[in-house]
């Protein structure tokens, strides 16, 4: 058990720092964004479980108690000691840290979800007041603003918002590509993945990696939506739309907002749509997926072992 605990602690350290750093820099992720996203989610989930699990394991090891047996012992001792003799100060600290970390992560997820929901409702109301429906495209609305912007609002009644600037900028087939891209976000519920990583970032702001993970995931989600859109529109049209929207930000109308497009991301997304770029081989994809499953399952199995 001690060896397993040490292994899980090592896994927690690896998943908290070096693994995400390597993955954020990896180039293969753009070839198969779906499996890369699965790996990111496994890292976040496995990392969190490994951190909590190794702390619990360390704290409980000398007592010989299982997690289920330990709960009444410790809950009883919380207000009217004494703790089991085998629990020293470090074990006590480790157990407290595990409980606090677990609660912290869950509360942050709940908080982020609530804040996001509130903002989205207000955003939806404003969009309802400020935009006009696009007759030819059900579920799409036009917002009167010169900057070229497209995004979607998930919910019971989903809305895709296109700015006036975007509609004027793009040809009909390119607009079709943008709409296909946004429909994928809505259909595949990408906002839930973004939300989970946003919460992770909010919960662990001192982990520089959480920020990088959120960025990478946001980019991969766009690429995944590109891949799905490519089933109905040509990759060439989609790449043209991406490049035109990216470069249109240099015009004075759009630059008035104080934002610039993420030029590196624009280039990466357009390049990968060029013919000749192949996704990872099925064998490589299976390997990444199997690795992802192992990363998420190993700490979960360890925690079950603690029961």
């Amino acid at each position, binding site marked *: 058990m001690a060896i397993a605990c040490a292994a899980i602690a090592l896994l927690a350290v690896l998943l908290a720092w070096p693994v995400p750093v390597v993955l954020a820099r990896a180039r293969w992720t753009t070839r198969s964004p779906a499996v890369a996203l699965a790996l990111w989610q496994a890292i976040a989930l496995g990392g969190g479980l490994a951190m909590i699990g190794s702390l619990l394991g360390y704290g409980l090891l000398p007592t010989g108690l299982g997690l289920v047996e330990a709960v009444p012992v410790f809950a009883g001792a919380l207000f009217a000691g004494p703790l089991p003799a085998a629990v020293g100060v470090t074990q006590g600290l480790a157990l407290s840290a595990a409980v606090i970390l677990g609660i912290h992560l869950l509360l942050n997820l709940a908080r982020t979800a609530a804040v996001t929901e509130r903002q989205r409702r207000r955003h939806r109301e404003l*969009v309802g007041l400020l935009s006009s429906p696009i007759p030819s495209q059900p579920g799409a609305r036009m917002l*009167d603003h010169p900057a070229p912007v497209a995004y979607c609002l998930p919910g019971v009644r989903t809305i895709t*918002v296109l700015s006036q600037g975007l509609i004027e900028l793009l040809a009909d087939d390119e607009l079709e590509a943008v709409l296909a891209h946004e429909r994928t976000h809505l259909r595949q519920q990408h906002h839930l993945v973004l939300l989970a990583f*946003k919460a992770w970032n909010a919960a662990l702001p001192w982990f520089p990696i959480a920020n990088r993970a959120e960025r990478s995931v946001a980019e991969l989600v*766009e690429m995944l939506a590109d891949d799905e859109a490519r089933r109905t529109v040509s990759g060439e049209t989609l790449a043209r739309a991406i490049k035109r929207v990216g470069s249109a930000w240099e015009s004075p109308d759009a630059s008035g907002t104080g934002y610039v497009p993420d030029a590196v*991301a*624009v280039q990466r997304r357009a390049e990968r749509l060029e013919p000749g770029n192949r996704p990872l081989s099925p064998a490589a994809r299976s390997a990444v997926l199997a690795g992802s499953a192992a990363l998420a399952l190993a700490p979960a199995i360890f925690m079950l072992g603690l029961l």
Partner: protein
Amino acid sequence: MDALWDASAPLTANELRDCLAERALAQTTMLTVLSRLEAKGFVAADGDRRPKRFSARRSRADHTAELMLEVLGSASDREAALARFVDTVTPREADTLRRLLG
């Protein structure tokens, strides 16, 4: 709401209904909608005078700017976590990103 934005002075519910004559709205509908907009902070009613006069709290451009900021804001301060077609950052963030990922 559009009629209020286009009006130069605060309007009463009756005047507003005349602006929207082609929609043939009942007076009560008009007042319900206005009080809902007031509760949400989009519309302000002035003082105690009868009939009440309504005006938009903020201009259409202000609201649009607010929306755009929410949409364009960087990933780290953007709670709404929207998926944007082309990601945008502030120039400073762009430099940092290039350094980190370069």
